[in-house]
């Protein structure tokens, strides 16, 4: 079946449909990871976005029940050069086609994804319409143009949990660990952290869910945290009443500016509890501290972004997924810059000078991507130890 992706600037890509059929709108972005499409699909930070993978062969290893970052795929649409109908991996359960189709996600394949990526790089990310129903390019361009776009839209409300819940160790991590352990080596470096035994101490952590990735929860758990996940609109008072050892500010989709309630909550927590933020959580923390955010031309989405840790001068290869960024020049004197991106010198991490508060723009939980920055979870527990 034919599918068409139309961009707001009038560019048309005609390809073949896979996954679900129908029509969808979103901001068209590209991700440069060569592996990890299932993690990308299920990352709630992609809400509102049609994602194209720059690696041309997608679907090779199918899908499984373990490599998920939320309850299901979150993207608005999925764009690949060649969908592999045949999948081969010892853990695969379903084809990508049936996975997407079951979750109602429209895929398009057979288009020149590099041409698309170059367009987005040169002109910036833009809105698009992906359809298998209306194959009139003009209509689709009109729809893409008319779409509201991500700026100023509170997408967190579409992905946060409806009510608070306790993350169980068994929720997800065990599935992966067990599978990998059964297969792999006796002495196992396979747990997804680096050879680290879970601490016996238990930290009580409240995680503000702006669209949290499961692997953050798995990581926190493996670092000895008991995590209570709470909806994004939970207030500072409610969180403090639970008397946590620390509060985690999660990743999430879209523009941080309209998520004003969370900024307010964070302001109410600063100086009271150790805070650790990732991605959107980092941006919201930056705003709460008085900084400003701006939209990047085409964002950082991939698993090869070099980030320098200024304290150690070492470079981490990081997994990233963000379209907005905290302006490094807008930061108040109360915080230090701890990490910067070596590709474009943008801000990647901050730490408060007075309080046990730090955050990073990138994804130390990886999934997909390298594990270079998993030390940050230990840093969080150390911070809680010190308080």
């Amino acid at each position: 079946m034919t599918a068409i992706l139309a961009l707001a600037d009038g560019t048309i890509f005609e390809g073949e449909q896979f996954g679900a059929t129908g029509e969808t709108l979103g901001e068209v972005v590209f991700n440069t990871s060569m592996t990890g499409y299932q993690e990308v699909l299920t990352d709630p930070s992609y809400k509102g976005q049609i994602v194209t993978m720059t690696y041309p062969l997608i679907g090779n290893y199918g899908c499984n029940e373990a490599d998920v970052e939320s309850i299901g795929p979150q993207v608005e649409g999925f764009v690949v050069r060649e969908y592999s109908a045949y999948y081969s991996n010892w853990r695969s359960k379903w084809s990508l086609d049936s996975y997407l189709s079951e979750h109602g996600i429209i895929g398009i394949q057979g288009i020149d994804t590099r041409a698309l990526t170059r367009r987005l790089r040169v002109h910036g990310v833009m809105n698009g319409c992906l359809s298998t129903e209306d194959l009139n390019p003009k209509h689709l361009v009109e729809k893409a143009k008319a779409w509201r776009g991500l700026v100023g839209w509170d997408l967190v409300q579409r992905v946060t949990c409806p009510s608070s819940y306790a993350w169980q160790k068994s929720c997800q991590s065990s599935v992966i660990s067990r599978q990998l352990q059964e297969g792999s080596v006796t002495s196992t470096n396979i747990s997804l952290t680096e050879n680290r035994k879970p601490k016996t101490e238990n930290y009580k952590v409240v995680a503000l869910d702006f669209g949290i990735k499961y692997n953050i929860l798995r990581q926190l758990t493996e670092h000895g945290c008991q995590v209570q996940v709470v909806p994004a609109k939970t207030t500072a008072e409610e969180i403090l009443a639970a008397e946590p050892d620390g509060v985690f500010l999660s990743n999430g989709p879209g523009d941080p500016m309209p998520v004003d309630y969370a900024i307010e909550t964070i302001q109410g927590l600063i100086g009271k509890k150790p805070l650790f933020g990732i991605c959107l959580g980092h941006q919201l923390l930056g705003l709460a501290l008085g900084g400003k955010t701006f939209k990047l031309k085409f964002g950082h989405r991939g698993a090869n972004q070099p980030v320098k840790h200024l304290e150690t001068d070492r470079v981490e290869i990081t997994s990233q997924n963000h379209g907005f960024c905290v302006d490094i020049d807008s930061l108040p004197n109360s915080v230090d810059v701890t990490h910067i991106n070596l590709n474009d010198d943008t801000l990647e991490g901050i730490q408060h000078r007075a309080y046990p508060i730090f955050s990073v723009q990138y994804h130390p939980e990886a999934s997909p991507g390298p594990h270079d920055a998993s030390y940050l979870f230990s840093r969080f527990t150390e911070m809680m130890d010190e308080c």
Partner: protein
Amino acid sequence: MPKRTDIEKILIIGSGAIIIGQACEFDYSGTQACKALKEEGYEITLVNSNPATIMTDPDFADQTYIEPITADTVELVIAKERPQALLPTLGGQTALNVSVELAESGVLEKYGVELIGAKLPAIQKAEDRALFKEAMTKIGLAVPQSGIAHSVQEALAIIEQIGFPAIIRPAFTLGGTGGGIAYNIEEYEKMVTAGLALSPISELLIEESVIGWKEFELEVMRDGADNVVIICSIENVDAMGVHTGDSITVAPIQTLTDKEYQLMRDSAIKIIREIGVDTGGSNIQFAVDPKTGKQVVIEMNPRVSRSSALASKATGFPIAKIAAKLAVGYNLDEIPNDITAETPACFEPTIDYVVVKIPRWAFEKFQGTDETLTTQMKSVGEAMAIGRTFKEALQKGLRSLETGWSGLDNHPLDALPLSELPSKLSIPNVKRIFYIKAALARGMSIEEIYAYTHIDPFFLYNLKEIVDFEKILSEPDTRQHIEQRLQGSGISHAPSDYETNGAVTKKLLHQAKQFGFSDRQLGDIYDVSEEAIRECRKGLGIEATFKTVDTCAAEFEAETPYYYSTCSSEDEVRPSDKPKIMILGGGPNRIGQGIEFDYCCVHAALALKTDGYETIMVNSNPETVSTDYDTSDRLYFEPLTCEDVLNIYHKEKPSGVIVQFGGQTPLNLALSLKDAGVPIIGTSPEDIARSEDRQLFKAVLDDIGLMQSPNGTATSSEEAAPIAAALGYPVIVRPSYVLGGRAMQIVYDEELLHEYMQTAVQASPEHPVLIDKYLEEAIEVDVDAISDGNLTVIGGIMEHIEEAGIHSGDSDCVLPPYTLVDEQIENLKTFTYALAKALRVRGLMNVQYAIKNDEIYVLEVNPRASRTIPFVSKAIGVPLAKLAARVMAGKTLAEVGFTREIEPAYFSVKAPVFPFNRFPGSNTRLGPEMKSTGEVMGIDTDVSRAFAKAQKACGYTLPLSGKVFISVKNKDKRAIIFIAKKLTDMGFELIATHGTAKVLLRNGMESELVFSIGKGRPTIHDYIKNHAVDLIINTPTGDLHRPNELLIREMAIAHDIPIFSTIPGAAAAVNAIDALQRGDITVTPLQDYFQMLQ
């Protein structure tokens, strides 16, 4: 860290002659290192015995020593140059082994030389199997169960534990030489014995078999601040059990989830840290159980490798260059990424295409050897192809091989009985990919093929898609559409029909192109020429588009124009309007066409760049310097076929194309390119053809009054016999349609002639067999010259040591001639000038002559770059290929400043290196068919010492005392007397069989008697096995039915005992020993020799 200022002078060791497992990838890495370090202001001392390398060009180092890469010679260089540091990781296993030897023996300490990049303990930990295993266990990584054996007994104990099948890996051997898989105890004992002999430290690793597991490789880099990045991941299509050098491989990894890939990445980082490679690149291999995902570590190379060259070309990230910079103190984040210019080298390249590497083998040259692919590498070269799908890259790769395939073609194997397929699929072999195609075409399921091959079903499915699509293309309906289109007129009537037909055909052809089908492949399906397909496809607007290799999947703009073709919607190439010249490279390495031609192509690019041209390089060989994005202004990584070259030509529209530098590959395209309107510069394709066509060439020679050896042409066995009889045996026979000595033989009698005509070639009127009178005991001479159309200047005259009849690539030769008289030399020059004029040569020309009884015969003329150009250039201090490129582009020799011939006051000897140790059972006798993989050069003011150096560089250490076994054919008995006499005078003892001993005794020489094979014991075989003989002189009778002689050669090769099989060779060796006895070898850099020329 900024660069180190406490070191000023750095020693770099190259990898020596091209051998299997160690080819031009180390010229690529070494050249990059030299450039990178010179750029930083360091003084570079280089040792490399291989003259055909770019790195040994005098501009790339401050002192270039073309000397043997042995510990004692390198010590001489160190003593003379006193470098503060030695970079051991860029010259392959050869450089690493010599560096280890120098470090362990205390030489480095004595002269205060620091190992940079990797320290001794790290190298030992990575290379020593036991230490490596221990290190892996320490960091919690699994390795296959294994044991170390130093004797057969120990090996037998280990096999009790591990069971069959078991893998045997000798320590410190190249490309796994001597390794293999044993399925039973008999095989096991045989392999253990052979392996122990081959390992320089008599050590074997016996390993649990993980045959059938998936094989992966990661290319890792680490800097002094402990930053570690993965440059490239590679998945082998062939499962464990086939050496990675013999496997089809794909980058990046295709069938691992991110979870599994990151696990492997974590392991790789742990490994490089634990082994302790300070800075630089390493290659780490893993095996993964396809059923459970269990990962085990196979091995690590603590240096740049063939895979790192592949990874560099696959990603655009120059591993060797960066490794060199890291070794002198820079960190990854301090080095810019050349390709994007704006981002640092501290990142992990991400690619948005698929890279397929396919090996190229040369089994046809080594008949009689087992062609099964095992853990011991046997391929001699490789092609890399880039596409947007695996299917496209694979088909491009197959046609890049230049073995006659135009993709995943229909194959004569298709007719193979179904019952034979299982064994062809399960035993890895050169043609397996085509057997898989045959199996798929006959409906064998992916599951069944997987059961036989253990090739991941993902790849098999992709192959099936190609096969299925080909079926669609062949269906009657489709045929009708496309054939109508092809005929044009056949399509009727209404314009709307024509349009419909156009749309259908366009869709089909577009998809065919996206699947990587070539025009020729499509032409074969529809029984039309590839030109017809091309015209039809272009009429429908289906053109190749070019994309950029940019390290970052288009996230940043690329500054470096490095392209590949694909069929897509956007073309990224923006041609400039500068004057430009396109150079066609040589494709994958093979015997007879390798680094020498790449050297010429690189020189053409460098020279034309300085003359203000934009240079465009086209090549498919990932090992080379020519495919470094730094070499030319624009690089196209593409197959060298007419279609692919025309695509680039039409895009770039260069004012000239050079086809004469890349060997036979681009030459074969010359006429069809010219027909398509491509401006070929230099000697015209017609004149080149004139030199290759027997009749036309005879006319040329007759015109200028030159002689050829008497000859004739036969189209059948019946015709051949009387021709040969009239010429008189022995004769040289060869097919007319191949070059490079392929299937060329000396035939001594009618019986052998019949055998040759029936088995070796299929003679027919279209493919006649050429029969030449063999000029026995003639002196062969090679002449390289350059001509601008008016003036011709001789570059060098090389006198072969071995007599005519042995392929020039397999002969030792000396420049300048050492036995020819002035008159002969003058005649050779005059003849060469006349030939250049007659063939209207503009550029390079090589002529081979034979001199017999004072008569000069022309054997062959090649009006193009020859294999000896780099050797001659280095011998005379003039870059001939550079000059030739400039002349081809329009300059005169006067303008480029080369009008006078140079006669060096020193001697340069070129010696070949053979791969016989890889091909047990094959014929080791030298003849007209070339078998050597590489060459070395020895330079000295004394010809015998130059010969001794060349022998040493080949790996033969000439003995200064000991025992010499002499066994020569009757004709040589007279000549051997003087040689034997000289040997006894020098203090050697002689060993001989009965006949020879008698002759020696009559001439006053005692010898120790051995039995001829089969007549009693001991025989010479016993002496060889006991290492009780130090030198062998054995001239074969030429009778192929005497296998004993072959066995002597094979055993001598296996036991590293120097063996000479010609009288002139033996004489040269004896003179060399004499020279060595008279005084120690000294070392002198090329730059000093060139001073002598001034």
